[in-house]
């Protein structure tokens, strides 16, 4: 399981990376915005994306839409981890095809729960 962590703050990338490591996911890579993430996704193989929403150059929602519009990437699970907490935004993300949505600040337990739920659903639909 290779996971791409996308956030413009290096500290948040590090925190997410540590939390994922604690949950047994130690194979990760990082990108600082949607554009850099998309370049990595197109050149390397990933099984999961954890992305922030508000980033310069290319936002997380734009990244999500780009992933869903890409023939090769469209089934890639995407978990949004963001400070954006408006109802309309959550609906927008859901409509764009997000697999999970975590509002910052979040706990290790929330991350574990959401990951578990996403994997359960993927297993059920596979």
């Amino acid at each position, binding site marked *: 399981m290779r996971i791409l962590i996308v956030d413009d703050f290096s500290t948040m990338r590090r925190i997410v990376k540590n939390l994922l490591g604690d949950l047994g996911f130690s194979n990760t890579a990082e990108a600082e915005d949607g554009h850099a993430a998309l370049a990595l996704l197109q050149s390397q193989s990933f099984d999961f994306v954890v992305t922030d929403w508000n980033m310069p150059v290319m936002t997380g929602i734009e990244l999500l839409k780009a992933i869903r519009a890409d023939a090769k990437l469209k089934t890639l699970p995407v978990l949004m981890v963001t*400070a954006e907490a408006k*109802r309309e*935004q959550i*609906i927008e993300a859901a409509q764009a095809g997000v697999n*999970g949505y975590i509002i910052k600040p979040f706990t290790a337990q929330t991350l574990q729960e959401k990951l578990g739920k996403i994997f359960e659903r993927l297993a059920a639909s596979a």
Partner: protein
Amino acid sequence: MDVAMDKAWLVQRLQEALAALETGDEAGWRVQIDALAAARTQPMMAGLSRLARELGQALGELPTVGHDADAEELDDACARLDHVVTMTEQATHRTLDLTEECRALTARLGEEALPALEQQQALERIRHNLTEIALTQSYQDLTGQIIRRVVGIVRRVHEGFGALGLPPELQASRQQGRTEPALAGPAVAGVDRHAVSQLDADDLLSDLGL
């Protein structure tokens, strides 16, 4: 110019402008209108100058941060806020370094047959790191002070515009018309009423079939 004088002066300008207009004196009419326009913009200019002066003073009042060399360069609010970002980033990385080290140390302590001396050293190191982590949090005091002062400046500018009769709502809506509305960012309790909790978000998503 007091109110009565002001009124008399205005009446005179208007009457002369009207007279000039009626006699087809284009230049004379313009002179009167220009005088009226200048009278209208003068208080606005004076207000803006005062605001600029106050802003300059407020910026000068800000506490300097960091070491001497840094302090010289931090001469405006934006640089100070950038400094807040750097300070918080450094403190977070320092804390993460220390927690990672502690994690490795606890793993060592879990090893069987670890000599008593090494065990003692590992515990000492963990204790030291915990103290360091606590100390690292002192950035909050400094960043808090800087942010408060910048908030004060923003409020003064906002009030200054209000005093000049420039409604902030109008400014904001003009801005929005030109650029895409910015993302809301982290919700602040008591301020952002639109924000939902993780539980609300979960309910919403499950309603949407997620």
